[in-house]
């Protein structure tokens, strides 16, 4: 099953490699990993998407907790949560399909943010699933390049991962 693990880790040099190294050393897979500082500059917040059986996920969370620098973590899959991912996608356009591509982007609430005579760049946020769906929907056109941030998320309501 897919899990989104949200981690608060001391903002020290090497924090990212400790987490990434743990995953490669123990053979866990990482689907995506996003890291950035938040309002508390002493901490770094990572969001990690992984897949595994319940046993594997249990080990992953235990092993992550065992890292000395990890302050707290939560598996968003265990709680009601909101998940978002940002995608930029560049599509080759012909006079014949420009309107069609724009309409598709609109349907998915994407924005065209760069335009040339031969291309559109579309910005889109949503759940990873929605982004997948958009990519599938326009796959008949020529996709030049895609970049995605990987998922990030927060629990709904007042529950939160803070100190």
């Amino acid at each position, binding site marked *: 099953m897919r899990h989104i693990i949200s981690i608060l880790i001391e903002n020290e040099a090497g924090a990212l490699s400790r987490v990434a190294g743990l995953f490669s050393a123990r053979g866990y897979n990482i689907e995506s990993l996003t890291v950035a500082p938040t309002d508390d500059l002493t901490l770094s917040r990572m969001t990690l998407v992984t897949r595994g059986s319940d046993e594997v996920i249990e080990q992953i969370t235990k092993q992550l907790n065992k890292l000395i*620098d990890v*302050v707290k973590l939560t598996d968003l899959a265990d709680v009601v949560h909101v998940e978002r991912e940002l995608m930029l996608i560049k599509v080759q356009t012909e006079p014949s399909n420009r309107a069609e591509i724009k309409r598709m982007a609109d349907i998915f609430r994407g924005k065209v943010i760069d335009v040339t005579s031969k291309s559109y760049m579309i910005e889109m946020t949503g759940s990873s699933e929605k982004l997948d769906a958009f990519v599938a929907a326009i796959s008949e056109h020529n996709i030049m390049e895609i970049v995605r941030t990987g998922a990030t998320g927060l629990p709904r309501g007042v529950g939160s991962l803070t100190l």
Partner: protein
Amino acid sequence: MELSGGQIVVQCLKDEGVELIFGYPGGAVLHLYDAIFQQDDVQHILVRHEQAATHAADAYARSTGKPGVVLVTSGPGATNAVTGIATAYMDSIPMVVISGQVPSAVIGSDAFQEVDMVGITRPCVKHNFLVSNVADIAETMKKAFYVATTGRPGPVVVDIPKDITDPNIKVPYAYPESVSMRSYNPPREGDQAQIQKAVDLLLSAKRPMIYSGGGVVLGEASDELRAFSRLLGYPVTSTLMGLGAFPATDSQFIGMLGMHGTYEANMGMHESDVIIAIGARFDDRVTGKLTEFCPYAKIIHIDVDPASIAKTVKVNVPIVGEVGIVLKQLIAEINLNPRRVGVEVLAAWWDQVKEWRSVNCLEFDRESTLIKPQYAVEQLYKVTAGNAFITSDVGQHQMYAAQFYHFDEPRRWINSGGLGTMGFGLPAAIGVKLAHPDADVACITGEASIQMCIQELSTAQQYQTPVKIINLNNRYMGMVRQWQEFSYQGRYSHSYLEALPDFVKLAESYGHVGIQIDKPEDVTPALEEAFAMKDRTVFLDIITDQTENVYPMIEAGKGHHDMRLRVAPGTPIDRELA
């Protein structure tokens, strides 16, 4: 007090109560070595190879419970230490390794003797630090010792760039009294509801087993284990790492379990209905084939490291906490509970265990005209009255040591269990002897292993550490040969040791005593002679039977009930007990 970085490191060691460190100098740690030179509170032991520094410090820690401390230079000094760091990591040994690093300004430029020590050691340390400011040294050192020694212990590396120890840059020094880290809070007490569940299970068992591990030794919980086991009267087995926590000569002890464990311990585990694992981690050398592991048992597992629980084996009652504290909680709870396992039920289980025991699975050929390695260890046990500290290397000799030297006290059996590091034994013996100058210390080794850190005979001479090296010389990498005999139809690929040195002359060239024997009747007199020489390091080269194998053995992919014995047991096993 204003001190330079180099002086601060040394002062931190003093303030931490460190008496001994093991190391080897080089460019990146010259400032540090200069600070060491100018004081006598912290004694530095100069080894002959950085790997040996880590093993000696590790064994110092294993035998005393205090953290071992290592000092090495950058680059090759640091990489040489990695094997020893990994060895300590696998066995959860508290150790602080200080490594020099190239000056901050050139880090990342492939400078002379630069390696990314923090990167290289990340997977084999409990934690590591790169110090980037003189003012941070004291707090970092305090954290290093705190992390290394608390919770599930382990090695911590502190990597210090050369400029940070510059004698010309002085800063105010104060060693922190205590340290608290919001991200690190090792557990202590076990959850009371879990304790209750465990006790209910323990008191309703029909075929209970106590499976104790290295965590009991590390957690100083030997007394609690003894009290707990005696209160219940259940059979006790131990992992390789846990030997000595429960007395081996106690009638409740049924021997080591696992790959080369006793028939009674492995059969007991296999047939058991309730197992309590205490500070043990269900290592693959213990469990054998996982799908056949303890098929009838409900399992209680106590460990200070939650990640050890349910890692490979599912458990019914996990208890996270310090073993000593949890055992006390269990004892208190049992004392409150009037229920006990029925006398007849327990007696029937013990009858079964005794029947397995009567197979006498460790018996060997006592009529042989060749020296049997088992006999040599048995005699060593007698000659030292079971009181010696025994270090070992890795191979058959290690298993004979574990099987035939009956440890009645914790911290006496010093071996590399998790990593299985050949070369561990001799530097370990030196580390133990330095910690316990008045005790008998013997290194049970093999002619292959001993050559991996043989240069430490020089250290033994310099510091007058009279250890006894018991070389069970079978001219083979015996353990490799045994696997090749069992699984590769006797194709002994590169396991025969040609061109062995004359160990007697080798020992003598380092100023030690060398003795070689090859007849069974000489074993006891030679051992007596060796141990009578209180102030000499003695290399006892014992030419043993080359064809001897370690039994019993659970071969790869087999379960506990499927052991290879020297003699097949005639006893049918009756599961329908009680």
